[in-house]
């Protein structure tokens, strides 16, 4: 899940020297001629040296990115069942999107997934971060514990949770202690989707927690101390100092959370296979189902392109909303 972090994160770990990375950047920028690109020296090799360096990267880019995108666009206007060659069908696939009830159902489920997942990525991890930001002995081991699910595979997580969520499992036992249940979490159509969202959230919380923790440690301690001396309560410090200082990081977790929520195929595939009765059929799973279970490669790609446009839309929306706040 760290793969899509690049542009959102700001670079390498803080350098050990007193001069911060930002200072150094500023110094270099001041020395640079206006309009000149970053980096201090002009290449002294031949004109093609930079392209030679990038050659392996560009070849890989072509194979795993550019070519697939071209194929996806081409297939979205074709009918293709893998066995016989693809035939051009124009916008037929896009028309089918409009009237396909399962597609509408998958879209609704994906949006519902997004709505339920976002608080698990943006709000809950903040409280975890506040907790592990406390300066008490042994706090590092709690950070490790909360982060543990992030490094494990989704399959392992699914095995553990399917076991816990069994009718006679631990979760239902806990529910029975307060006089509730039993609930058949993954087989009940109204519970299946929230359950899958909760497990996905549980697995990734530690990751968002670390983003907030880094942000919290960036808040100058004097601010918090002087607020305490002025008699501010914990809640007041949270509201007036911590939350404003974290604003840019909310934008990061929100963007990552929304991307993550749309990319839920793995979880859905492993936990429920879209069931029961399509209760967890999301766009990602529907694409897989169309392509590999029903051999409708063309239409699957059309749904994929719709999903891509949707995700870019969300990303842009996020950018504009957070820009306006600045």
């Amino acid at each position, binding site marked *: 899940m760290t*793969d899509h972090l690049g542009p959102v994160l700001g670079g390498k770990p803080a350098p050990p020297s007193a001069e911060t990375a930002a200072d150094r950047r500023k110094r270099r920028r001041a020395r640079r001629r206006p309009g000149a690109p970053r980096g201090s020296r002009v290449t002294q090799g031949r004109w093609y040296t*930079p392209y030679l360096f990038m050659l392996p990267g560009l070849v890989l880019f072509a194979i795993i990115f550019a070519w697939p995108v071209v194929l*996806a666009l081409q297939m979205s206007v074709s009918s293709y069942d893998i066995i016989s060659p693809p035939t051009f069908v124009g916008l037929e696939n896009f028309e089918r999107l409009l009237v396909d009830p399962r597609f509408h159902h998958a879209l609704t489920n994906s949006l519902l997934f997004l709505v339920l997942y976002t608080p698990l990525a943006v709000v809950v991890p903040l409280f975890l971060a506040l907790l592990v930001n406390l300066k008490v002995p042994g706090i590092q081991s709690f950070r490790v514990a909360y982060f543990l699910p992030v490094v494990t595979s989704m399959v392992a997580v699914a095995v553990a949770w399917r076991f816990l969520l069994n009718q006679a499992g631990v979760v239902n036992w806990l529910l029975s202690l307060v006089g509730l249940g039993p609930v058949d979490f993954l087989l009940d159509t109204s519970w299946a989707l929230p359950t899958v969202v909760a497990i996905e959230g*549980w697995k990734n919380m530690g990751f968002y927690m670390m983003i907030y923790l880094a942000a919290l440690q960036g808040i100058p301690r004097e601010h918090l101390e002087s607020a305490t001396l002025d008699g501010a309560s914990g809640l007041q410090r949270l509201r007036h100092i911590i939350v404003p200082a974290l604003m840019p990081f909310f934008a990061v977790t929100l963007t990552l959370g929304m991307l993550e929520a749309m990319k839920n195929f793995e979880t859905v595939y492993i936990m429920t296979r879209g069931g029961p009765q399509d209760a967890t059929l999301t766009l990602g799973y529907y694409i897989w189902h169309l392509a590999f279970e029903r051999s409708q490669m063309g239409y699957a790609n059309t749904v994929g392109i719709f999903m891509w446009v949707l995700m870019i839309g969300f990303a842009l929306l996020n950018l504009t909303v957070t820009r306006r706040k600045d």
Partner: protein
Amino acid sequence: MSADTVRRQRPASFWVRRCLLYLLLAVVALGFVGPFVLLLSTAMKPETQSVYGFPPSIVPLPPVFDWFVDAWTLIPFARMLLNSVLYVVITIPLYLLVSAMTAWPLARMRFRGRGVFFILFLSLMFMPAEIMLVPRFLVMSQLDLTDSYTAVILVALLSSLGVFLLRQTFAEMPGEIIEAARIDGANEWGIFWRIALPITKPTMAVLAILGFISVWNSFIWPLVVLTTQDKFPIALGIAYLTGVTGTDMRGLAAGTVMSLVPVIAIFIVLQRRILSSMGGAVKG
């Protein structure tokens, strides 16, 4: 005032608060670690002890290790573990080299189309695996690479995170070192290989660890592109084991635990580095 006297002067309420705090931390920790602990205990439960039930039995009495042997023999477990190791060992060095070679000109050279290339590599991140699955599968079948180790490895060799973080690191390098090397007669490749690469060791370590975790856990792409069991990585093997063991939780739990051991071991050994680098990357 010595630390000792300070400690003695702390009021009782301080200790009460601290105990409650540890209690809270521990309860939350149980929520994150508990499921794995229960998985481990299930993997060691004897047949006479139920794995379900109210209240659940936590401690296996007596602990047995037969289920680990079962899981090992029910599927080609050793083979799948070896595959995962192979995928990691082949992928990570190549991934680091490709990322660095791509990032180096983007950070330190001037050439036509630099901005465009940078945006191209960044745009990788806006293409989630879900959408790329089908078209990538089609490309691999056109290249006649489906059901091959190569197909699994190729897709893991380039990521926007690698290019982005290394470009950042290269851009922070002091230019004087490069200048000195050039005066000493080093060519462009020599500068990259002998001067630039060693400087990026900390970033490389972060990328290698993150890469290891993601390759070890990779599931979707191998699922789509592989059909032969003997090429499965272990994460996919566990999904396969689910089908083989049926309702037998113990064998499945044992297999799952074994698949987690390497990645959890590495995480615990390197936890400080992993957690601080995650935080550092965000702070920038």
